[in-house]
Structures are given as C-alpha cells and as structure tokens.
C-alpha cells in the first residue's frame, strides 16, 4: 500500500527533513504518525501525496512509485489518496454538500451522479442533516467531518490526516477518531499524523510510527515483532 524505502528529504536551505526512513503500511491498516513539531510528519504525508519527491530513496503508493511516476499520473494517484488537514480547507462560499460535490465535480464525476453520492458521503460522516450549512455555520468537528467526506469522495484506498484533531475540543476529537476507525474498518487504510500523546495512549491497538528530527525512531509493530 504505502512503502518508504530509505527515504531522505533534504531542503537546500532548511536541511534534512527526513533521514533514511523506511516503513510499510499495509492495505486496510491504521497507523498514527507522531513526533514533535518539525519532526517530519507533514513531509511524510506530502511524500505519500507526491506533493514532494524524495531526495534519496523511493516512496511507493499503491501501483505508483516516486522514481517512476510521471507528472500527468499524479492526479490518478491523488484520487487514490484522500487527505484531511488540521485547518479543514473548506471553501467558505459553498455549503457542506457543495464542498463535497466540488471534489466530485473537479475529478470528472457525471453531474447526475454527484447529488446522490454527496448525500451518501455526508450520511457516512453523520452530517446529512447539515448538508445546506456553510462552513462558517458549522462547528469545528462538523467542518472536519465535511472535510473527511470530501476526502472520501474519490473512494481512496488510503486516507492521510495531518493533525486532524488539532483544532477540536475533546468531544469532537473523539468523534473524528471514531469516524476514522469506522472508515478504516470499511477497508480504507489510515495514516494519521498527530502529536497528541494522550490520543495515542487511548488507542493502544493502533500502530504508532514515531519520528524525531526526521528519523524514524519507533515503530510499535517492529517492537512487537522483536518481542
């Protein structure tokens, strides 16, 4: 599904963001990606999404490989990889339904199929009743659910989440994590970047990948394997 093989990312001015990172996230797996700010979590997600290319090593996502993918193939990859951000990134002038429909429209879904699919996606995240509300009329948790529904619009095989609970209160945070677990249970792999240690402690069943200064210093799966 997602494979990092000896991946380094070095910026000309800022230096190394990732240093020789290797891990494998299998199909349908859920993992937390943790570490302090600047540890390299966002860089990992950007590499999976192919917003950036590694300086050394190879990133493989599904059938796409960072050393062979062509520019025009990147949109195909991104339809297989849903992304959720801490700041939701919704369009304020559109309603919740239109925000989700926007993703379907710009990826070429037939017009007549958009409305039923939007309804289904909003139902999946528990927001069917708020379809007509604009982002400014929604709570943080609700906005994040709209963003998740949008990320699921293209039926991705993996969902990337970059600090998705960072702007949420405790109740909303739990609701979003429960939603991720439900999505994962339905077969979509989830890689969630977070520095919320408490959240990770509450879910010991979820794999943890920890980064420190760009290096992968801990992988709970490896520890279990070693034990």
């Amino acid at each position, binding site marked *: 599904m997602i494979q990092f093989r000896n991946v380094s990312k070095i910026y000309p001015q800022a230096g190394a963001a990732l240093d020789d990172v290797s891990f494998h996230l299998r199909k349908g797996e859920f993992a937390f990606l943790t570490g302090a700010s600047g540890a390299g979590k966002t860089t990992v997600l950007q590499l999976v*999404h*192919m*917003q*950036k*290319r590694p300086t050394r090593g190879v990133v493989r996502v599904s059938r796409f490989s960072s050393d062979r993918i062509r*520019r*025009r193939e*990147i*949109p*195909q*990859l*991104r*339809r297989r990889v*849903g*992304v959720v951000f801490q700041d939701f*990134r919704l*369009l304020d002038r559109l309603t919740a339904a239109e925000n989700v429909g*926007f*993703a379907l*429209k*710009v*990826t*070429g879904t037939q017009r007549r199929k958009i409305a039923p699919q939007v309804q289904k996606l909003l139902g999946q995240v528990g927001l069917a009743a708020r379809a007509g509300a604009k982002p400014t009329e929604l709570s943080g948790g609700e906005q994040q659910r709209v963003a998740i529904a*949008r*990320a699921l*619009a*293209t039926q991705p095989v993996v969902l990337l989440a970059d600090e998705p609970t960072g702007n949420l209160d405790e109740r909303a945070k739990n609701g979003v994590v429960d939603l991720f677990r439900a999505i994962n249970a339905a077969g979509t792999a989830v890689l969630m970047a977070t520095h919320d240690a408490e959240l990770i402690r509450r879910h010991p069943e979820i794999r943890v990948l920890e980064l420190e200064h760009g290096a992968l210093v801990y992988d709970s799966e490896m520890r279990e394997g070693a034990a």
Partner: protein
Amino acid sequence: MSALGEAATGLRRSPLLGSLAVAAIGFSLFIIGLFALTSYNIHMALTSAESRVEVVAYLDDDAGVERIQLARGEIGGFPEVDSVRFVSKTEALVNASNQLTEFSDVFSDLDINPLPASLEIRLLPGYRTPEHVTAVADRVALYPFVEDIQFGLDWVNQLHRLRRVAGGTAMVLGGAFALVAVLLIGTAVRMWVLARAREIDIMYTVGASEAYIRRPYLVEGLVTGLLGGLLALALTLGIYFLVSRVLFQIAWIPDLWVISGVGAGGLIGCLAAARAIRRELRAIHAV
C-alpha cells in the same frame, strides 16, 4: 460550459485588469487593422494603376515599316508582354488634337506632323511592377530606331514605398501593444489565480487534472483576446466610416482578414494566459 462559467466568474472578479487587457489587445489589433485598411486600399489603387501601366516607345521617323513590324513581333514575344500596339504618326496627331481640343487649330495648321510614331506595350498582370516595367523598357530601348521610352512609374513606386512604410510602422506599434497586452493578461491571470488559490489547492489535493485546472484560465484569456479583437474591429470600422464619409470613399477589408484579426486576438489572449497559468500553478503547487 463549466469552464466558460468559471471564466466569466474570473472576469467578474477583476474587471479592471480584464478591461485593461481587452483594451491593450484591442489597440494592438486596431493599429494592425488600420494598417490592413490602408494596405488594402493601397493594394486596390496599385492594382488599378498597374493595369494601366504601359511602356511607350517613341520611334524615329525613318524607322521603316518592316523593321517596326519585326520589332513588334519580337516585343510581343517577351514573357512579360500582353500586347503591342503600333500608333502611327497620323494616329498620334489625331489623338493629340482630340485630347487637347484647345490646340486643335494649331494641330490643323501644321505643315508637317511633329509627333513620332510609337509602340504602346501593355504588360501581363503580375508583371506590372516597377522591376518588370523597367526590365522591359531597357530591352526595348536597345532597338536603334527607338528614340525615347516613357513609363509613368514614379507614383507607382511611391505607392509601393508608402505600403512598406505603413506596414513597418504598424508592425512596430502593433507589436508593442501586443506585448503590453500579454503582460496585462499575465497580471490578470495572476490575480485570478491568487483569488482562487484555495480552490486550486483543493483541486490538486483531490486529484483534478492539470488540464481541468488550467481550462478556465485559458478560456478567460481566449474571451479577453476575442473581446479585444472585436474592440479593434469596431475601432477600425469607425475609421472606415469616418474616412468614407468625410474624406473619400475607401474599400473595406476582406472578411477573411477580419476573421483572422479577431482570431489573432483570441490567440494572443490564450497564449498569454497559458504562459501565465503555467508559471503561477507551478508556484502554488510545485512537485
């Protein structure tokens, strides 16, 4: 249809820049339109004038009929020559007295006819240019019984020169305005992209293709360019009516030129937008 709607939204969002870009393209094509109008009318005048261009070879009185007939046959065989007509001394005198009626008494009282016989040589279409006329005249002048040669080409030369000067000026001015138009469209596209940066970012994130993202901007450039082309057409038409009514009747340029001009506006707009969007999108979403 969707791209057209997005394009209309873009133009509504920055009407000032859009209008400036339309005006710049309009003026650049207006300059070229003026040149086209001038050039076409000079071309019409040249065609009309050139159809009357002929080389007249005045002959010695003692040239002899046989030698003249022989030369007439030879000159008629030149590839540039359409026809050769012999005008006798008598015919020349009759023509002169008919054309200059105020001197008819003088002509009728003459004891001897002072006018020479001549060969009036008409050239084929395509050979009525200064170069060919001069070449034919030079060859005809080689006949020893040809006393003088005349061909009224000075003003044809002037028309040719005028057309070249008008063309050069229009190209320089039109090119300068076109460059300004390209820069303005580039700025307009940059504004449109900045105004929609979040939308574009989401499009990239969810997997919209580059072509889909670029399309509205290319349509915006195309529409801006076509509007500029139509503005140029309106301005050129205005000048055409003004000159025709106030100064003298001139001919309107052919439809194909009009379509090409407006189309050129669309092309300039589209290419300028393509150049700008390429750069701007890479800045937003470098891979």
